[in-house]
């Protein structure tokens, strides 16, 4: 095996620039997925069966089809759906956000249901209305329990974001691929991309552990 990283050193800044692109897509999609996930999870535990039905159907569709297909549907379908072509990174944020909302809503729903029923009863008995009881009493406890699962989802999102390559977003993966094409050698740049993804995931993991420690103060 002859590896020659030397020749890729000039291209390194170009590949590293992709980190910003990846992070931007992942963080925006993460926020979209989290907010929409909370809304969907409220639908799922709602008294109104119709809302639950909508959220279940949503989850079923987004979990039941490949992410890369959703990405391509949104990107290539946009001219027919809304009349003009959206740019690739918008399509990426939308598809990743909508997709992870499906998973996150399931995580949060399970987290809310796992909080002892006595907690909401205690809040009710004190005359606390549903919304503040949910926001101040139930959700904080649910969040603590689901943090590892939520972190897992964000890690998956970071790694899976590499598929934006197929619609031409110049993220880390795409840039590594382009550099490989220029030098007729793909192995080294893709190894470099792999290392970059691994480091990003490690940082996320540490971040998650830090937050978890903070939240476990009351134990």
């Amino acid at each position, binding site marked *: 095996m002859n590896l020659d990283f030397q020749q890729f050193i000039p291209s390194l800044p170009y590949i590293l620039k992709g980190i910003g692109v990846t992070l931007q897509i992942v963080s925006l999609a993460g926020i979209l997925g989290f907010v929409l996930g909370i809304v969907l999870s409220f639908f799922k535990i709602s008294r109104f069966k119709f809302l639950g039905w909508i959220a279940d159907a949503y989850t079923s569709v987004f979990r039941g089809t490949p992410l890369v297909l959703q990405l391509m549907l949104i990107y290539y379908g946009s001219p027919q759906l809304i009349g003009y072509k959206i740019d690739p990174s918008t399509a990426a944020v939308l598809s990743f956000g909508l997709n992870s909302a499906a998973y996150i809503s399931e995580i949060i729903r399970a987290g809310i249901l796992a909080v002892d029923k*006595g907690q909401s009863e205690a*809040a*009710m008995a*004190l*005359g*606390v209305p549903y919304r503040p009881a949910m926001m*101040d009493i139930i959700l904080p406890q649910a969040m*603590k329990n689901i943090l590892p699962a939520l972190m897992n989802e964000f890690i998956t999102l970071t790694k899976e974001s590499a598929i934006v390559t197929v619609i031409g977003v110049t993220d880390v993966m795409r840039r590594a691929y382009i550099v490989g094409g220029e030098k007729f050698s793909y192995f080294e740049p893709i190894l470099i991309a792999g290392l970059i993804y691994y480091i990003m995931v490690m940082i996320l993991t540490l971040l998650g552990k830090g937050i978890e420690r903070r939240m476990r103060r*009351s*134990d």
Partner: protein
Amino acid sequence: MIKVENLHKSFGKLEVLKGISTSIKDGEVVAIIGPSGSGKSTFLRCINLLEAPTDGRILINGQDITDKSTNIMKVRQNVGMVFQHFHLFPHKTVLQNLTYAPVKVNGISKQEAEKIGLELLEKVGLSAKAHEYPNRLSGGQKQRVAIARALAMQPDVMLFDEPTSALDPEMVKEVLEVMKALAHTGMTMAIVTHEMGFAREVADRVLFLDGGVLVEDAAPKEFFSNPASDRARDFLQKML
């Protein structure tokens, strides 16, 4: 003043309360006893509508709380409840447990709520634990905090749902002492309990429930020394 008229409660096909009528006067301490499954807890939980009655009426200070137009949240602010398993908020400190609802619901300032909270903690003997999290407390301490939390809303009535049943025996007394002191302040109290000694000593009246029916309603002396029904006699023989 609480007035209960012909209260029925069913869970599906299971009828738990079969028409209970009674009243609790202001300042009265009522012990509710009976075998498990007799509907004691359900009866208590109906009084602050944690369970919605299937039929009948409940009036608190003349207001029909089973009426659709009644604001349940307003009613609950005046009716404190203490649970068997405490249900303290684990992610809040002891003091935050006491101040959360008064600030959020009654809209009093944080300083005012903390002042009231600290006074109450002193009354239940837990001033030193104000800034601890509930997980650091013993069962008896947790229940005393739960009582203080309910009192922080300055309710007119306090409901106790088997407040000592989940406690180790050596911690029962400290909780009963707090309840006894509260009774002496003239608080209206309804207590579901298996502590017969406490019921005899502190209660003004004993309600004996069996099979969803109010079988006896008597002064403790009378009830414990000379129960009118066979069912009560059976029950007491097993308990004492």
